[in-house]
């Protein structure tokens, strides 16, 4: 186990897999610079720069996957996925079903997501719950380096299409490009254990659809994903000083959702607070409520999410994205 950054762990997973499987290729805008280490090792045929034509190259990645390649197609920021949505909604997600289960689409769609660095509402969305609504795709969101590497392997091994989202506050190079730009005059609320942490020397895949309990507790379940997990852990620290023992669940995979983990924790604590950087309505937080109610578990429930378009101004942004204070105050309300 060495300490590595979130970004290094993903690169490592890709390098490990690409060395073993010559059919893995990377496609996307600027990938020859973004993945310069992979480009210089695997060459321009396997790390291909594309034109700014997301609908064509994501669509192409779908059939390339059907015809024997294993493309990792990058759409840079998940916000830009709207341009390529048809390829995901009507093709990647449906071919297996349309073919009567006979034809697979082993495709990884990779994108950076999330906010907290003042880049405005068109570049800081999360959208994981939105994407997970479409049957037929897996959606994973790592919260630390070991999972970032492990979930990339999970994605690469999965027989169907996977959307792999890396949060910009965790991936140091994204934050550098989009937020820091070599300045010492700006600061961001980067979760240190998310951006850097121990990573095994040889990575292995995280089991699909398996949440991780990051902290045990008996009073309230904080359920989150990505950066949200770290906000929950921080909130749990404060709650502890107020005598509240919070359990923190890192979903890791939005779809499939680890219903068992959510329900077991809900059953135990009787209080569930979902922390979701994606939009509040019709998304992950609602789905968590549904699986709890479906299981017949009686629990108090609240959610701290992004309620609206994310504002540009750092002040307003801070209030809009789920922050530790909002989590603490929602948790305390549930306790009372």
């Amino acid at each position: 186990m060495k300490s590595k950054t979130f970004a290094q762990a993903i690169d490592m997973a890709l390098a490990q897999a690409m060395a073993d499987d010559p059919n893995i290729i990377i496609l996307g805008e600027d990938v020859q610079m973004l993945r310069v280490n992979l480009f210089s090792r695997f060459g321009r045929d396997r790390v291909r720069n594309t034109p700014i034509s997301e609908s064509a190259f994501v669509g192409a990645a779908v059939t390339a996957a059907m015809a024997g390649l294993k493309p990792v197609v990058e759409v840079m920021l998940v916000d830009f996925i709207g341009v390529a949505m048809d390829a995901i909604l009507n093709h990647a997600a449906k071919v297996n079903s349309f073919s009567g289960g006979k034809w697979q689409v082993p495709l990884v769609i990779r994108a950076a997501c999330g906010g907290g660095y003042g880049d405005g509402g068109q570049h800081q969305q999360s959208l994981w719950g939105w994407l997970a609504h479409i049957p037929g795709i897996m959606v994973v969101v790592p919260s630390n380096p070991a999972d970032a590497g492990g979930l990339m392997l999970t994605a690469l091994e999965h027989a169907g299409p996977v959307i792999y989202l890396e949060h910009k506050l965790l991936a140091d190079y994204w934050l550098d490009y989009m937020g820091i730009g070599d300045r010492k005059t700006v600061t961001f609320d980067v979760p240190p254990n998310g951006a850097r942490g121990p990573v095994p020397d040889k990575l292995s895949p995280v089991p699909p659809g398996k949440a991780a309990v990051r902290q045990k507790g008996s009073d309230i379940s904080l359920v989150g994903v990505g950066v949200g997990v770290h906000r929950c852990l921080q909130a749990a620290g404060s709650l502890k000083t107020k005598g509240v023992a919070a359990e923190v669940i890192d979903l890791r995979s939005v779809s499939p959702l680890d219903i068992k983990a959510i329900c077991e924790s809900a059953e135990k604590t009787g209080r569930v607070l979902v922390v979701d950087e994606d939009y509040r309505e019709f998304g992950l937080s609602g789905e968590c409520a549904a699986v709890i109610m479906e299981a017949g578990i009686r629990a108090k429930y609240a959610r701290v999410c992004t309620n609206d378009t994310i504002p540009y101004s750092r002040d307003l942004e801070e209030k809009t994205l789920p922050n530790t204070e909002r989590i603490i105050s929602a948790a305390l309300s549930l306790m009372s």
Partner: protein
Amino acid sequence: MQPDLWELYSLMYKSRLFEQAVKKLWNDGKISGEMHLAIGEEAVAAGIVSHLKEGDAMALDHRGTPQMLMRGVDPVSLLCELLGKPEGLCGGMGGHMHLFSEQHLAASSGIVGSSGPAAVGFALAAQHLRPGAVAVAFFGEGAMNQGMMMESMNLAATWKLPVLFVCKDSKIAITTVSSSVTSGSLFNRAKSFNIPAKEIDGTDVEMIWLAAHKAIDEARRGEGPSFLLAHCSRPEGHFLGDPLIRITKNPLKEMKDMAPALLKSILKPKGAAVRERTESLSSVTSILGQTTKAQFFNFNDPLDMTRKELKSDKNRLEQLEEKIEQEIKQIVINALNGNTDNKKAVT
């Protein structure tokens, strides 16, 4: 090289009879949803698909039955799929707009324009895994205005991918005359991406075969994509039950439903000036007129042209047609009974 006209005719005739059988089954209520026939486009399909071999791929749109059939997909399992049977090519899950055969690297989609990216992806895989193999995209002239189609042309040309873009110009997209919503020529549009383009009579299977031969050959040799613009006409309309066709075929009955509301709208106060209203009406009439024309007068049947040449050996032609007719009859019977080759193979 010259095409084998007998082989091409047999592909076309088989497809024609198959689709006529499909029409009957659809009319009988045994096929559901929108059924888009490609009667009138057989020469384009045959002239191109006859070049394909193992490892080559096809990206099809909503009108892809002939290509699947000509490529060698088991016809009974194909028909079973249209019938929505578990024995179908896709277990009844896909239906006529979503025909998939992994073995033939053939994929369909009902999203207009998506055969562009699909062919690019197939060709990319070919470049990596099956050098010398090609991918063909079939689509209509309406699809040329879909952004992803234009992006795909740029992408294929940039990466010198082995793609043959085949645009079947029916002049109409559902009810919209494509020239009224398209600026510039599609031929020049393709050429502007640096893609060699050829415009061709879509009923002349020999010419199509030759053009495809050249284009596919170049693609196999790594010289990149080509574009074929083939003009066809399509007497069965956009899909079975096409309201335009219904009106032109049975104006009295259909107009009885349509006319009163239309008349009322035209006479209502508030709205456009009288002249503009008259223009609207005449543009509706003109679409109906074009539909009638395409159906009854303008239909250059690609089969007729070839049949004329083959008539020199009348006996052989009669035998061939007879054989195909029997084949199709048997296919329909087997499909209705669910006796697919797949099934036979499994049991």
